[in-house]
């Protein structure tokens, strides 16, 4: 497969969905959800197992595939040995995967947080969209509430459109776009030098600017039968929206992929996506716009 085909490839439709397979108690639930999504998006399903090809494991997986009802004509299994994160990332590139589904714990211990688990490391580095499932289920689960991070970034337009595509396929009628309002240094400046109306004006202008940009994106969308609400939260980027999603009991939080390569310093000085990955509020869809 030509990895150059990844460049400029739009983030949707999800023609190929991959799922990372580990023989854990949650495997059946994870495969079930992956199958549901593959059926919903009419995608090919690729199951990735990193480890030695073992006849017992092969048989166990085969039994599961049959039990869940995965269509063999539209799916395949890849067994590959190697370092899990690197291998999965390479396989996704080689197989032009549009969406990678992985199971993830809501919260990890301190060591894993700083060193990085497989799921988190993949989320940070994948060149495709990643769907992190915190509580995969082997019963049908309807996604009802989707929250999208409307951060001021060129990628956001793609993320919003991808979310609309996701919502339409899953028959969801409503999306909420949340903008995080945070301006470092402003509090000190306002305290020193602004009347009450001026301070209100500054805060209002900050919000208005954010809303204007999002409304421009929404106007360009062709989203029939989809209600799009826009709201804002004040607080540290990443943390504020994660808190919002948790408090509103959302089913899915959708965010942009990271702009830069993330290292341990980004976990020490936590910001943006790292706040979300530190404590997943719900399932997380990281849209990779590939721009």
């Amino acid at each position: 497969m030509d990895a150059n085909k990844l460049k400029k490839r739009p983030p949707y439709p999800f023609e190929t969905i991959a799922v990372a397979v580990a023989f854990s108690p949650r495997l059946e639930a994870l495969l079930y959800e992956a199958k549901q999504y593959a059926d919903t998006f009419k995608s090919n399903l690729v199951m990735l197992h990193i480890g030695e090809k073992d006849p017992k494991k092969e048989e166990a997986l085969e039994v599961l595939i049959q039990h869940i009802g995965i269509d063999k004509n539209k799916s395949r299994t890849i067994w590959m040995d190697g370092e899990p994160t690197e291998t999965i990332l390479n396989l996704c590139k080689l197989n032009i995967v549009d969406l990678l589904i992985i199971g993830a714990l809501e919260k990890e211990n301190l060591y894993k947080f700083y060193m990085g688990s497989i799921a988190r490391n993949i989320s940070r580095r994948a060149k495709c969209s990643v769907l992190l499932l915190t509580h995969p289920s082997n019963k049908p689960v309807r996604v009802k509430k989707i929250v999208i991070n409307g951060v001021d970034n060129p990628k956001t337009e793609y993320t919003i459109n991808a979310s609309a595509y996701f919502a339409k396929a899953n028959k969801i009628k409503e999306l909420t776009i949340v903008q995080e309002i945070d301006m470092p240094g402003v509090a000190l400046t306002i305290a020193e030098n602004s009347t009450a109306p001026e301070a209100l004006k500054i805060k209002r202008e900050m919000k208005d600017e954010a809303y204007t940009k999002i409304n421009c994106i929404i106007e360009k969308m062709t989203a029939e039968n989809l209600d799009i609400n826009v709201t804002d939260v004040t607080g540290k980027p990443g943390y504020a929206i994660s808190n919002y999603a948790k408090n509103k009991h959302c089913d899915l939080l959708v965010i942009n992929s990271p702009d830069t390569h993330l290292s341990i310093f980004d976990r020490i000085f936590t910001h943006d996506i790292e706040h979300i990955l530190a404590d997943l509020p719900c399932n997380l869809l990281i849209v990779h716009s590939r721009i």
Partner: protein
Amino acid sequence: MLVLSRLAAELGRLVKLPVVMGEIIIGIVLGPTILGHFSPHWHNLLFPVFGNVSIALDGITKISVVMMLFVAGLEVQMQLVIKQGKAAISTSLLGMLIPFAVGFASAWYMPVFFENQDKDKFLYALFFGTAMSISALPVIARTLMDMNMFKTKIGMIIIAAAMFDDLMGWLIFSLIMGMMGHGKNFAAIALDIAYILGFGLFMLTIGKKIIDKSLPLIQRKFSWPGGVLSLSLGLCFICGAFTESIGFHAVLGSFIAGIAIGDSVKLKPKARDIIHQFVTNVFAPLFFVSIGLKLNFMDNFNLNLVFAVLIIAIIGKVIGASIGAKLGGLNWRESFAIGFGLNARGAMEIILGSLALSAGLINEKMFVALVVMAIITSLFSAPFIKLFVKVEA
């Protein structure tokens, strides 16, 4: 002091002058420069040099500076530097190192000109280098907001670099203050550095975790806003007392406490606003007015020195930050805009100078030069940025 400084600040605000300028002017008017000159009787009556009033005022200004560094620390967000990437990091580093080097070299090779008659040459040069490298976040943030540049790429790089330069500047200054007590005892200096790093690391890791766990409880269960206000300022003073006890100035402890609390995602924006309002509008004016009460600005104004300090400050900072920004991938126009943006020294420079004066590290003439430089660079930051960047209305 409070009433007059507020009136002066409001008048200054009408003509877009920094608030700190109005406060210092009131101090100059009430101090030996004007009131003391024309009516020494009233000056001595209002601000006696000896006695309980003097001790009380000294105490208030010391507390004020500790709290001001606490609120400065609240605004430092190291993740902003990391987030902005290469451009912010190179701008921060070179925007610090080059002015520091220029300042250090100037004071090292021309100690008499820069008013070092009898102080340790190395320490003095270190201080002067630090004074040349510091930036003032509140002034810069205000300038960028007024120019609608706050959320632009240039604006965010300037803010990130200012935060980093503030952090490094205060760390180095605290080290200098610690070194003043140890002379050239390298073992003691190494221990000092270990103490600072250890304390900083503790506050920014374990301390932050404790703060993250405590803040939600305090903000929810304690009286609002009294609970969070008194406990956060309490932590500020505890940390200040700690650093004072290990030989550094209390401002280091309060600055680091501010960073730890300000960095917490659990601190409500409203709580942050209240802390800012309380300190910035009550204690900061008292501090800046007291600066003018300390000395006669006219007698200690040395035009050559002021000019030299101003030129070194501007050249070092503008060139350093511009080169840093250019290396970070920006074009020359944007880089120079960033250089001039970071050149505003404002309140931070004045606080640094005041602490150095109180510690006997610098004399009055150098202090006056630093104050004048801080004000001029703050006033002219915006016009120079506009020269290089087309600002959208």
